[in-house]
């Protein structure tokens, strides 16, 4: 087990290293730079700025300098937000982004899984058909469409929720719904199909044959088996939510991290692009790692020592 954890940690560091390298060179291969083509910056100033941020150094030198500072958890100064470091940018946006993200994850698990079980128990009856129809819509409509629709109906037309910002708690409702819509639908569909399959397994018949109570049969024998496929897709789902959050934060004008990310790309704000990418990459690999540990706990056939 300890050996497994160490191995995984090494793998995580290698993965992150590769992400950093790829992003770095890809980013620099996009034409233009942070201080070029911008009308407001005179050429002399741009030159001075480039010098200040070592943008005139050879690329490989910039790369190694950057690696060095990242290794010390320093993501460098932002090019566009004057006087702010990328660390500070992330720190400022984190509370809002984390709240939206965690609420969405909670919604997905606490609502999505029970919906899936409920639908499976009512297989092919009308509650199942209705719920699955909604879920199918949910996985086919992109989150920015859901977000815009929600915003239009509930904020602009009905005025039930604020149209932007999170000064009031109600401001979180629509972003969380928009962000979790896809994953919520996906998880409930997956839970449903997985539970239906589990219900047909021989061991479920054994459980009924033993005279166990329905709650025991469904939860103890059914759910654990049924959740295995759900656990496996949690990693990709989190990835989908992280990327989705960029758009959602933009639509709802939330002061989170994602908003800066979209802006930083148009601005060629190199350090911010790199910083936020690394930040999200770390979150993702750590979550995938935790999910794998949980997977090993649920399924005894998976031995965490290989």
């Amino acid at each position, binding site marked *: 087990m300890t050996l497994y954890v160490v191995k995984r940690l090494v793998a995580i560091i290698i993965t992150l290293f590769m992400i950093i390298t790829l992003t770095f060179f890809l980013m620099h291969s996009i034409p233009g730079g942070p201080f070029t083509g911008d009308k407001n910056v005179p050429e002399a100033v741009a030159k001075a700025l480039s010098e200040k941020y070592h943008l005139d150094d050879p690329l490989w030198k910039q790369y190694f300098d950057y690696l060095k500072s990242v290794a010390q958890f320093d993501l460098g100064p932002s090019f566009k937000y004057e006087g702010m470091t990328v660390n500070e940018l992330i720190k400022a946006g984190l509370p809002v982004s984390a709240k939206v993200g965690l609420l969405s994850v909670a919604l997905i698990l606490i609502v999505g899984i029970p919906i899936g079980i409920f639908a499976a128990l009512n297989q092919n009856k009308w509650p199942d058909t209705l719920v699955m129809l909604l879920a199918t819509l949910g996985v086919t409509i992109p989150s920015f469409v859901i977000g815009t629709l929600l915003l239009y109906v509930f904020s602009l037309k009905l005025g039930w929720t604020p149209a932007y910002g999170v000064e009031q708690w109600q401001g979180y409702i629509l972003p969380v719904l928009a962000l979790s819509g896809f994953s919520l639908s996906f998880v409930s569909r997956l839970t449903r199909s997985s539970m239906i399959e589990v219900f047909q397994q021989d*061991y479920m018949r054994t459980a009924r044959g033993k005279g166990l109570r329905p709650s025991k049969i469904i939860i103890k024998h059914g759910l654990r*088996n049924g959740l295995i496929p759900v656990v496996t897709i949690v990693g990709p789902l989190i990835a989908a939510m992280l990327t989705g959050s960029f758009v959602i934060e933009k639509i709802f004008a939330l002061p989170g991290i994602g908003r800066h990310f979209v802006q930083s790309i148009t601005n060629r704000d190199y350090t911010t692009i790199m910083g936020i990418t690394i930040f999200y990459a770390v979150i993702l690999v750590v979550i995938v790692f935790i999910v794998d540990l949980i997977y090993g706990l649920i399924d005894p056939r998976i031995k965490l020592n290989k």
Partner: protein
Amino acid sequence: MNQEMKDDSILLKVNHLQTSFFTHFGEVKAVRDVDLTINKGEVVGVVGESGSGKSVTAMSILKLLQHPGKIISGNIIYKGQDLAQRSEKEMRKIRGNEISMIFQDPMTSLNPLITVGEQIMETIIEHQPLNKKQAKEKAINLLNMVKIPDAEKRMKDYPFEFSGGMRQRVMIAIALSCEPDLLIADEPTTALDVTTQSQILKLMKNLKGEFNTSIMLITHDLGVVADICSRIVVMYGGMIMEEGSVEDIFYRSKHPYTLGLLKSVPRPDMDQQSRLEPIKGTPPNLVNPPEGCPFAPRCDYAMKICTTTCPEHTYIQEGHRSMCWLLHEEAPKSDFLSEGDELYE
């Protein structure tokens, strides 16, 4: 109340059981008018080709069928009360406790995520006033009884750490954990290799002696029934074709299907030279079963009436009945009636 209900040597009496599956293709009449009696302490073998309705009969007794399966009619009189009328809640008190079942495939019948010990203990705790510690002790005893070495240690293991034969032993331990009056074993050895098969059968035989449990043993291995059963029920197309003592069926069979079955499978008393003859044709489609005798399309003796009207059971002697027109008093005498005896020799 009829007389049989009062007869206290009878443990289970199934009357006119009819079970169907309502599928997209139509009603699959899996069990059609089955009568079955199991006496206390008796081992009854149920044989028949694949799809003859053996498992569905067993599942009907415990009311374990799930949608789209449904018991259409019939009584399942267990200890004088009709299980067909019992609620799901009442059935739960019977399942695993008074009547327990062992299933065909031990590889998939245990929950892969739960320790073997827990899977035994949960049945005990469900039905008996024992706490966890006492249940654990009992489970260890059961594992010892079904001859699993290192029982105490193996309690913590998961099913995937057991071989097929060992898993079937665990299933037997679970089935016997509440000392049931009736054990329904649905092809308990079919999925196992020959050596393991005979070990499991020996185990069941010993346990039978110890607990005096009645057993309904479903199998398509005639060797198995000959060895441990006292009575045999032969099923085909969802109906009982013939019923009798082991000797009646093996040496004095009065049914063309039984005879075909006897010739198609190796038997312990057969010499090496005799050739096996599989029964020609395929089992009937149970969605729209043919009128008349279900075996008619494959039967060498079939007469005109066989295809139009289903025969009734005729008693050859007490305890030996056969459902065949050839036994009707007006039927033409044929060599068939002595063929069963010839197999004897």
